[in-house]
C-alpha cells in the first residue's frame, strides 16, 4: 500500500500532479468550447463527476475507515435540500453558487457528526441498520415538510451547475482526500480499520478521528447532492431512498474500496452502464446487476481494492520487466 511513504516523496509528486490537473482542465475547456461533444455526452460526464465526489465521500467511511454505513442517501438529500433552499431564497445570483454548495456541504457535515456518535458503540450490521434508519427518517421528514414541497419536492432551483463546477469540486476533493490519507491522520484511520483496540493502545484518538472522518465524508456527499440538485433544477424525497443507497454501494464496491481511482472508476463504469444501455429500458438493470455479480465473483475486492492507478501501473511494468528477464535467462540457457 502506498501509505508508508515519507513526506519528502509526497512533495516530489506535487509537480506532476499539478501538471495532470492542468491537462484535465485544459481538456475539459477544449471539449466544452469546441462543441465536439453533444449535450448528452456532457450530461454523462456531469453525472460521472458528481457521483465520483459522492463515492469518494462514501469511500472514506466504508473503505478507509472500514465501517459499513448506509447513510449516504441521507447526506445527499440534506446537501441537495439545504443548498436548494439557499440558492432559491438567499443566494440567487450565479456568482454566489459556491456559498450554496458550501451550505449544502456543511448541513450534511452536521448530520455526519450525528451519525458518528452511535458508531462509537454499535458495530457491523447493527450500525448499518442505524445508518439506514437515519436515511429513511430523513426521507420521511422531507416527505412531510410542506416548506420544501413535501412529496412533490422542490422545483425551479436555479441551474447553476456546469461541468467546471463539477470537476473543480472533484479535483478539490481528490486533493483533500489524498492529502488526508497520506498524512499521519490517514495512518491513524488505517490503524482503526485494522484493529480498533490496538489503535487505541498506541494512543490513536479513535473518537476524534471517527467523528472527523464521518464529517468529511458527509461534507463531500453533501456537496455532490448540492451539485445534482442544481443540475436537474429539482429535488424530491423519492430520489434519496433505497435505490440511491443501493446505487451508491454498487459504485463504491464495483470500483473497489479504499481507493480514489476505484471510486472514480466505479462511478464512471456504473454511470456508463446506466446511460449507454438506455435503449434497453429496464433490461439495463438486469444487465447491470449481472455485471455486478460477475465482477464480484472474479474480483471480490472490486477492480481497484486498496490500490491506486499509479501502483497498478507500476506493478504491471514490474511484471513485464520480470517476464522479459526470465525469457532472456531461458534464452541464454
Amino acid at each position, binding site marked *: 500500500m502506498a501509505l508508508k511513504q515519507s513526506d519528502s516523496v509526497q512533495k516530489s509528486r506535487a509537480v506532476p500532479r499539478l501538471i495532470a490537473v492542468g491537462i484535465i482542465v485544459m481538456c475539459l475547456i477544449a471539449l466544452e468550447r469546441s462543441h465536439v461533444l453533444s449535450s448528452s455526452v456532457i450530461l454523462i460526464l456531469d453525472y460521472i463527476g458528481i457521483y465520483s465526489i459522492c463515492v469518494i465521500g462514501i469511500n472514506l467511511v466504508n473503505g478507509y475507515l472500514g465501517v459499513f454505513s448506509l447513510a449516504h442517501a441521507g447526506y445527499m438529500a440534506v446537501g441537495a435540500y439545504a443548498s436548494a433552499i439557499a440558492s432559491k431564497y438567499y443566494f440567487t445570483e450565479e456568482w454566489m453558487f459556491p456559498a450554496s454548495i458550501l451550505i449544502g456541504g456543511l448541513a450534511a457535515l452536521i448530520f455526519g457528526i450525528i451519525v458518528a456518535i452511535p458508531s462509537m458503540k454499535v*458495530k457491523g450490521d*447493527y450500525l448499518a441498520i442505524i445508518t439506514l434508519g437515519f436515511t429513511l427518517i430523513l426521507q420521511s421528514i422531507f416527505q412531510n415538510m410542506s416548506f420544501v414541497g413535501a412529496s412533490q419536492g422542490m422545483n425551479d432551483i436555479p441551474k447553476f451547475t456546469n461541468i467546471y463546477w463539477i470537476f473543480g469540486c472533484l479535483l478539490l476533493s481528490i486533493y483533500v482526500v489524498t492529502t488526508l490519507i497520506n498524512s499521519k491522520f490517514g495512518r491513524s484511520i488505517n490503524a482503526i480499520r485494522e484493529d480498533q483496540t490496538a489503535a487505541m493502545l498506541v494512543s490513536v484518538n479513535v473518537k476524534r478521528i471517527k467523528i472527523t472522518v464521518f464529517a468529511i465524508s458527509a461534507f463531500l456527499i453533501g456537496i455532490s447532492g448540492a451539485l445534482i440538485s442544481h443540475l436537474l433544477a429539482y429535488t424530491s424525497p423519492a430520489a434519496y431512498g433505497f435505490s440511491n443507497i443501493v446505487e451508491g454501494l454498487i459504485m463504491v*464496491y464495483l470500483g473497489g474500496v479504499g481507493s480514489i481511482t476505484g471510486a472514480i472508476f466505479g462511478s464512471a463504469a456504473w454511470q456508463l452502464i446506466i446511460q449507454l444501455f438506455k435503449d434497453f429500458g429496464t433490461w439495463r438493470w438486469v444487465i447491470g446487476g449481472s455485471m455486478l455479480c460477475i465482477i464480484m465473483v472474479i474480483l471480490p475486492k472490486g477492480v481497484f481494492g486498496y490500490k491506486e492507478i499509479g501502483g497498478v501501473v507500476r506493478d504491471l511494468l514490474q511484471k513485464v520487466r520480470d517476464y522479459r528477464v526470465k525469457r532472456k535467462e531461458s534464452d541464454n540457457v
Partner: protein
Amino acid sequence: MNIIIQQLINFLQLGSIYALVAISFSMVYGIAGLVNFAHGSIFGVSMYVLFFVSTLLFKTIKSTWLVYVAALTVACVVTSVVALIMERVAYKPLRNAPKISVVVSSVGVGMVLEYLLLNIAGSRALRMPSLIPKIRINFAGLPIPLYKILIVVIAILAMVILNIVVKKTRLGTAMRAVSQDPVAAGFMGISTSRVISYAFVFGAVLAAIAASLYGTAYSIFSYNVGDSIIWWSFIAAVLGGIGSIRGAVLGGYLIGAISVISPIVLPVSSYKDIVAFAVLIIVLLIKPTGLLGKNESEKI
C-alpha cells in the same frame, strides 16, 4: 371495543408476516453469515408464482384450499430452485472472500431478479386471488374476520415446525453447529456447504409461505413488493438480535405493533417509519446486539 379488536387482529396479522420473513432472513444470516439483500426478490418471485399458479388453477378447481396447497407447493419448489441457483452462482464462489463482497453480490442478484420480474410480468399492480376463503363470523355481536386469524395460525404453525426442525432433527443440529462455528462444524464431519444450501432452501420456503399470507392479507402487489417487506423484516431481525429465531419473532411482532399503533396515535401515517427507527436506534444504543442477541464479533 370493536375497533380495538380489529386493530389487535390487524397487528397479529402484520406481525406474523413480518416475523416469518424476519426468521427466513435471520436464518440465512445466522448460518451463511450474510445479509442477503436478494431475499426481497425471492419474496417477490414467490408472489408472482403464487399469482400465476393460483389464477390458472382457479379456472378448473373450485376448492380454495386445494388451490392454496397446490400453489404454495409450486411456489416453494420454484423459489427453492431460484435460491439454490443464486447460492451456487453468486455466493459459493465468494465463500472465502471478504463478507462485504458477498453482500454486494447479493445486491446484484436482487436487482437482476427484481427487474426480470418487471420485464416478464410488467409494472402494473396485480390482484392476488384470495387463497384463504374470506369468511367472517359473528362472535357476540362482533364481526370477526376468520381469515385473518387463519393467517396468524398458519404463520405460527410454520414457526413452530421450523423450531422443531432446528431443535430436534439431525439437520437442525448441524445448522446450529455451523452457525456457532463453521470451522469446528467442518471438523465434526458436517458438510458446511450443504448446510448453507439447506439454509437457503429453508429461507426460500419460509418466504414463499409468508408471500402466500401477505397476498391473502393485502392482495394488491407489484414487482417491487419485496423491497419494503425485506427492509422491515431486516429491521425486525436486527431489533430482536440478528441470527436468533426467537429474536426475529419478537422483532417482527414489535414492528407490526408499531406499524398498527402509530397511525392511530400520530397525525401522519408515514411517521410510523420514524417511530420504528427511533425505537430501533434507542434499543441498539442501549443494547448494541439487539433485544435477544448474543455478544459476538461482527459479521459484515
